[in-house]
């Protein structure tokens, strides 16, 4: 079992003829992902990464039965690409693109509330069910099949924590990178709910970072609704207020919201231990599973 993606998932890649889109479509296929089509306006009838390309997502869905889209469209056009994906009632859209204007994402966010499609991202590494399929840019070789669900706001931090787990022989059901932007589709609470309802997931890792209040909301949700044991990590303990640390969302405001202390204490209050190092997170997970 796994959440959101498995070897039955039928993927259309939006932007499959671009450099990134093409490379990662090939990587996804090599990993075993069932990529069935590409969608690029003006490129219909061509072939890329060994799959047919259509001018519209609608055509890719009709002709190839795609149920999931992975979006590698440049930021200026990515908002429009997400709208197109949402218009075809796909089950899942994964937006990898970094740097989408925030106001475009506010409009996407409004549209999302009117559809049944789930959005992951934007500005995220995607998600992977080890041994079955990956959607996005995660390096497949560090993951292993197992029973830990992982959700993270940051890409490379996900790799680091997964590496600490896999090195101890602890595999993953599914790992989801939800992205570091201020406005995202699937948030911690959504991902926690998915893992809580997945029979195979016996423990959950949640990697947060400074900025916003998503981790605090997740802590409240865990307290009320999650029985699966959770271990946490929060990046940015040493970040000074008012300085953005890379991600658009990662900033402690002048008035003190979004601090690591607030997130760590909210998680601790919900019974979630927060590791000082990625290695300590793996210690907690190992103790849950033994």
């Amino acid at each position: 079992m796994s959440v959101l993606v498995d070897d039955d998932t039928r993927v259309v890649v939006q932007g499959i003829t671009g450099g990134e889109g093409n490379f990662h479509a090939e990587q996804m296929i090599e990993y075993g992902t069932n990529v069935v089509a590409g969608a690029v306006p003006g490129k219909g009838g061509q072939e890329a990464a060994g799959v047919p390309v259509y001018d519209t997502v609608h055509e890719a869905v009709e002709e190839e039965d795609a149920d999931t889209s992975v979006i590698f469209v440049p930021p200026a056009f990515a908002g429009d690409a997400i709208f197109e994906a949402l218009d075809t009632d796909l089950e899942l859209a994964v937006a990898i693109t970094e740097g989408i204007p925030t106001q475009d994402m506010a409009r996407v966010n409004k549209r999302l509330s009117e559809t049944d499609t789930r959005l992951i991202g934007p500005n995220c590494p995607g998600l992977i069910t080890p041994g079955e399929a990956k959607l996005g840019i995660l390096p497949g070789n560090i993951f292993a099949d197992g029973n830990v669900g992982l959700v993270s706001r940051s890409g490379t931090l996900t790799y680091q924590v997964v590496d600490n787990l896999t090195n101890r022989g602890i595999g993953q059901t599914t790992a989801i990178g939800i992205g570091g932007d201020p406005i995202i589709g699937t948030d911690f609470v959504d991902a926690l709910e998915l893992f809580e309802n997945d029979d195979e997931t016996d423990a959950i890792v949640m990697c947060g970072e400074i900025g916003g209040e998503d981790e605090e909301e997740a802590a409240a949700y865990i307290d009320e609704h999650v029985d699966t044991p959770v271990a946490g990590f929060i990046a940015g303990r040493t970040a000074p207020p008012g300085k953005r640390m890379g991600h658009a969302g990662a900033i402690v405001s002048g008035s003190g919201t979004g601090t690591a202390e607030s997130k760590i204490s909210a998680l601790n209050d919900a019974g979630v231990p927060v590791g000082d190092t990625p290695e300590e997170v793996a210690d907690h997970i190992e103790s849950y599973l033994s």
Partner: protein
Amino acid sequence: MAMKLHEYQAKQVFADAGIPTPASQLASDVDGVLAAAEEIGYPVAVKAQVQVGGRGKAGGIELVADETEAREAADSILGMDLKGYHVDRVLVEGAVDFTDELYVGITMDRGEGKPVAMVSTRGGVNIEEVAEEDPDAIAREHVDPSFGMHPYQARKAVYDAGVDPAVARDVSNVLMTLYDLWESRDGSDAEINPLMVTADGDVIAADAVMNIDEDALFRQPELAEMENEAAGGDELEQKAAEYDFDYVRLEGNTGIIGNGAGLVMTTLDLVDHYGGEPANFLDVGGGAKADRIANALDMVFSDDNVDSVVFNIFGGITRGDEVAKGINEALEQFEEIPKPVVVRLAGTNWEEGMEILNEDLVTVEQTLEDAVQRAVSYAEEVNEQ
């Protein structure tokens, strides 16, 4: 990230859209200040044009009544160092005789994923402090971005805030205009604090904040032009901007380079955890090639506070062989390596990277934890010498 307009730039944008602003002129020397004041008519405010909050308290704003005072103010403000920023321009502005100071602003509420309009009768002070002490003193109205702000919403926010009914209509109009500007110019924040109310019942924007979403500058060419003119700040941060790095300078002596914001933040935290002090945040981003890696080392070596460097790369789209090439390239040009460098490579092509990496020039560690501890101990050794 947001690009911040200077006050004089934001005021021009607001004035062009029809928001009342005081008469004002930009000046860069004492004679310019005096000429501007003469033309506008005393009393005037002389205001430093730098991108920091709390200019008034820091001595960057003076209200002057005559030429003598204007000369004194211009002498002291022009050329001053205001919280690390050099003041080379001031705005000379007609003083407003006010009875009330309001606050109006538009920003993105990230929790809701929607724009929010805010109005308060407690303008003229730090609004973040008001928000903390007395959240009810700020009326908030969320806006559906697919429709924009309806006029009734502007009125509702203004009435909810308890603004004097005599000026409610004018304040609502300012708020509507401010929202339209925020939307059409891809604002992240648009604020007027204070929006002054005069004895005659006029409203006038005595300050102006306009921050633009940097990710949207590609469709705001006029504003992107302004940015070049307004560039300033810390020397190292300017250098980082030239190299196009996400860089934040900190106070410590352990330099940090990595890929991906979350992992770089984690590396900073671990330096602190193991008793060291981070000198900086530097994210090379995804897919960095050798020359970018070399630039990152140059960047961190440029900070005199740095006593050691930890270079932590977990490759997804970044390849270990490119990283190793870049490190060799940067270090082989030195007869003596300026500061000890600890390298940890993992992920995509890390084995290839390790084969290429010249281990005479760096210390290699296998794990993040070990790499950080090693760099911290090097920094301590340097300090003990």
